[in-house]
């Protein structure tokens, strides 16, 4: 039992890490622009496809493909911000509708370019096995956890100490006040979007080799990432990290006690329970005037 528990905790940390990468991007964008980008899941998926493209067609180095896919998706994020979200600024309803439209547009674009069938991405780290007592994991599993941890640490440092990071925090605290002190909030919007989509691309490119690259691969991480954000507290970066990991670990461990098809229900039941006790989420701050 202890062994199965350990195995599921490690599996949960891995899936949780992927949720964290999605949640981080969404929470940053939400913080700065106050809009939930529902297309974040398909950007995650696009990251997987772009990585597959670079890996099989261009370089052959997985690390390089990973970085290139982040760069490409940062540019896509830039285009989405400039082309879709900025023109609709101030109109939350239309922004949400536009992000739902983006899902259809990007998913069908991918199907048109790569076809509807799942693609395999064969990299060495999924073939190398690491033994932990009697348990064995593909090295890629642990790599995902490690890379996410590094990204989270870098993100905290960036937000805390860098000039741009401080500007992002300032903008998300009070957009008008940030403008008053001379922060170029529109540049902050762009930077945040680039960062967010690059993180989503990293998630997609990391998960692709472990499983498959297919058009619906971003659906579950997007929904679970969103649950993680709600659980951690809307707009809170540490909340997104903790929330994503809690969702990942609980749903994995639950399968030892409940039928596996209840896995998703468990994740959301945990979210509902925590929100009943703490409506602002674990790390959220209650703002006067907001429900």
């Amino acid at each position, binding site marked *: *039992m202890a*062994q*199965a528990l350990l*195995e*599921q905790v490690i*599996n949960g940390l891995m*899936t949780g890490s992927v949720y964290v990468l999605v949640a981080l991007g969404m929470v940053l964008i939400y913080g700065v622009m106050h809009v939930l980008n529902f297309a974040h899941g398909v950007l995650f998926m696009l990251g997987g496809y772009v990585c597959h493209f670079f890996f099989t067609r261009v370089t052959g180095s997985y690390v390089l493909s990973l970085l290139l896919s982040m760069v490409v998706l940062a540019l896509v994020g830039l285009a989405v911000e400039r082309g879709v979200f900025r023109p609709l600024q101030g109109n939350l309803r239309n922004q949400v509708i536009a992000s739902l439209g983006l899902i259809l547009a990007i998913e069908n674009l991918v199907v048109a370019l790569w076809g*509807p*069938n*799942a693609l*395999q991405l064969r990299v060495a780290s999924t073939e190398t*096995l690491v*033994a932990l007592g*009697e*348990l*064995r*994991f*593909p090295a890629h599993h642990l790599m995902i956890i490690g890379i996410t941890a590094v990204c989270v640490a870098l993100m905290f440092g960036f937000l805390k100490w860098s000039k741009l990071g401080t500007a992002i925090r300032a903008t998300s605290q009070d957009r008008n006040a940030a403008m008053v002190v001379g922060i170029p909030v529109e540049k902050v919007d762009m930077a945040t979007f680039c960062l967010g989509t690059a993180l989503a691309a990293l998630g997609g490119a990391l998960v692709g080799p472990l*499983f*498959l690259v297919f058009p*619906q*691969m971003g*659906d579950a991480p997007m929904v679970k990432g969103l649950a993680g954000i709600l659980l951690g507290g809307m707009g809170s970066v540490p909340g997104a990290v903790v929330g994503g990991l809690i969702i990942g670990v609980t749903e*994995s461990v639950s*399968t*030892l006690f409940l*039928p*596996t*098809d209840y*896995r998703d229900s468990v994740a959301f039941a945990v979210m509902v329970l925590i929100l009943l006790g703490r409506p602002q989420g674990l790390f959220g701050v209650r703002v006067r005037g907001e429900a």
Partner: protein
Amino acid sequence: MRFTILLAACLAATAAAQDKVAVGVVTSLTGPMAPPGKFQMNGFNLAAEEINGAGGIDVGGRKYLVELKVYDTRANPAEGASAMQRLTTVDKVPVVLGELHSGVAAAEAPVAQDYGVPLILTVPTGPNLTEQGNRFLFRVNASNDQLNLALADFVAGQGWAPLSFIAWNNDAGRGGVNGMKKLIGEAKTGYVGYFNVGDVDFSSHVSNIRAANARAVMLFMDEEPGSLAIKQIRDAGLKTQLIGTLAMGSDRFLKRLDAARLEGMVQYNAFPPNANTPRIRAFSERYKKKFGEEAHGFAAQSYDGLMLAAAAMRKAGTVTDGKALREALASLEHDGVIGRIKFDAKGQAHPPVYVTQWCANGTRRILYPEAFKADCGAG
């Protein structure tokens, strides 16, 4: 101008010399079932080519060339029903063959009955299809019940209880698990886990299988999830005996994984393309020559389907009367590539079902039935 007239005259002359019979085909040329649809069409095309190469079907002293009237039903029941309607009312074909998807076949079958045109299925495995009392429906291939029965018979002799399952969380998966449970007995059933279509992470099933000390795991799924599940089970260090379905006994499946992970796995199979049986060997050679790849069960079943339709036309002495063809089909015995085909009262044929096993070098051996047992390279 003169040339055109000449050409038209020539065409008219050949048309008169050679009668044609159009045979309906429903299959998937696009959509999620397009890859298996290709195997099905290969089988029909090969059969049509061989019939026509031999001068056509001899019906009452006249030779008829076969012409395939193909409709793409795209794994969509509505498309299937309307294609069937067109074939029977507009194209007026005497017989329709094919289909891949059991749900689509269920929508096509009533149309066949309404218009009195036999529908010969060559791939769908849903057991219910032949239980509806539809006299115009025939199935060449084995149904899921027949496949399960053979597998249960094989497994019973292996001492692999308790048997665990990972299965689709849908009709096919749950139906398959329940069917097997009934055959092997609840007591010999271990862990049963269902996954939703589109799930790719099987890690929770892996932990549960390890915890249940399962001797064997049966995977009720197709190629894509199958390859992921096998990789994850083997990577986690589980030595459990793996039992797979039709989709997992082909070279195509090997390409998704590797021989080391597959070694020892068994799966039921409707057609071992490399078996040392003359009828299979001859077919596989012709198939490979024409299409440049390993023969596939769906192709063999479809090839037999069209040959059977031709035999029915010869026997009934008609290329237009669907009802006469139905009577001919019901009583026909045909030595096909997949084995002897004879429909029972429900329109179901009973071809042999095989169990094959992966060898260390990436070939397959036949373990079941006893009469066809053969070593590595034969499966």
